[in-house]
């Protein structure tokens, strides 16, 4: 496989479920490769940062390969999904982890309340707050699929929100970095459209 034939590199963040993301990209006809190699990630036209597990474990894994220093310097489109989005922030309450520091805010634990169990697992409405190419063709109020116990607060970088007791960041964007708290690869046709929008972002901004 030649480097030029790859549309997106999926960062091997140690989660066991990279397969669902790879299958979703296959369905869109995108050529993906899973890698933890800093050089392959630097040269990738686009980078996907998935993540399951805890913020502390994921950061420790990135630190072992030096990716914690590489990822914030990337200039191509980078999409963090779920925990991958949370890693874009400065800090997470989960295990007190220092994260990548791209978005200046801290990720906090969701508080359980009657009718709002934690983890939050399920389809929730997402409403746009600003226009962003990642959300092209997505109607505000569309249901997307969430699985999380931690969340990012609403800041200037929040492009779309979801209401789970409080408003939370559903989509974040800062320069070439974007993140979704929901799982586009598990969010039906709307999720597929969001992944396709990501694949259409210009490889170099």
């Amino acid at each position, binding site marked *: 496989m030649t480097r030029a034939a790859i549309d997106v590199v999926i960062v091997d963040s140690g989660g*066991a*479920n*990279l*397969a*669902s993301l790879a*299958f*979703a990209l*296959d*369905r869109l006809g995108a050529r993906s490769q899973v890698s933890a190699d800093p050089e392959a990630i630097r040269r990738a036209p686009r980078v996907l940062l998935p993540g*399951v*597990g*805890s913020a502390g474990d994921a950061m420790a894994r990135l630190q072992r390969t030096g990716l914690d220093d590489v990822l914030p310097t990337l200039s191509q489109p980078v999409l963090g999904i779920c925990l991958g989005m949370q890693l874009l922030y400065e800090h997470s309450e989960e295990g007190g982890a220092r994260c990548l520091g791209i978005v200046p805010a801290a990720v906090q634990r969701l508080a*359980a309340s009657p*009718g709002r*169990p*934690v*983890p939050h*697992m*399920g*389809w929730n409405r997402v409403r746009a707050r600003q226009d962003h190419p990642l959300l092209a063709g997505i109607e505000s109020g569309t*249901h997307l*699929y969430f*699985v*999380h*116990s931690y969340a990012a607060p609403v800041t200037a970088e929040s492009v779309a929100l979801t209401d789970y007791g409080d408003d939370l960041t559903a989509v974040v964007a800062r320069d070439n970095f974007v993140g979704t708290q929901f*799982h586009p*690869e*598990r*969010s*039906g*046709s709307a*999720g*597929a459209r969001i992944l396709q929008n990501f694949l259409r972002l210009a490889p170099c901004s």
Partner: protein
Amino acid sequence: MRDGVVVKGVRFRGHTVAGDILELATRYRDEGADELVFYDITASPEGRSVDREWVRRVAGVLDIPFCVAGGIRSVADAEAVLAAGAEKISVNSPALADPPLIDRLAARFGSQCIVVGIDSETTPAGWRVHALTGDPGRAHDAGRDTLDWVREVERRGAGEIVLNCMASDGVRRGYDLAQLAAVRAVCTVPLVASGGAGAIAHFEAVFREAGVDAALAASVFHSGDIAIPALKAALAAAGIEVRR
């Protein structure tokens, strides 16, 4: 699931073939199902883990979450199923045999992908947990009170509970609202109702009266007696939020 096809029984017995896995998965995806759950019902009684090949094939066509259950007895078993593309894994009999399995799975993968399935029978002694229910010859009382087990699995790190009310299963007379409401009162993680759906009104009742987060059904969907789009339209008309 049994021997590579989808089967459905009545009160956990007399399973008949309901269809091909990929055909059903694709049909439910297109009809708007919000999540699919696959139970490899003979995996635990036969002492084997779930067959990963069909997990991989299902993952290739599904763009909605799906959960796989069947004889997952170790972190390595779970890792293989998740690596094949499942979103969540569900444990039932293996968790009864080895409760710390739940702690180990939650520590490794996070609570959000660890579902504990509970097969609960209504008995003169109250709601009791049953094990190895996939094989009528070996199913037995697991020696645990249902509500106690719900509290324990949540404490150990379960991120979701699917309560299968055995007395209601496959008979289509409605969910066991009293039992589900009692479980709802003692658990703070998402609760999925299972067993008994026969009419659209049963779904409305379980959301309103038992406060569950999701309702699972099999017979009425496999048979086509309830179409998912019609169900969702009726629930939305009744003021229950659904994804359309």
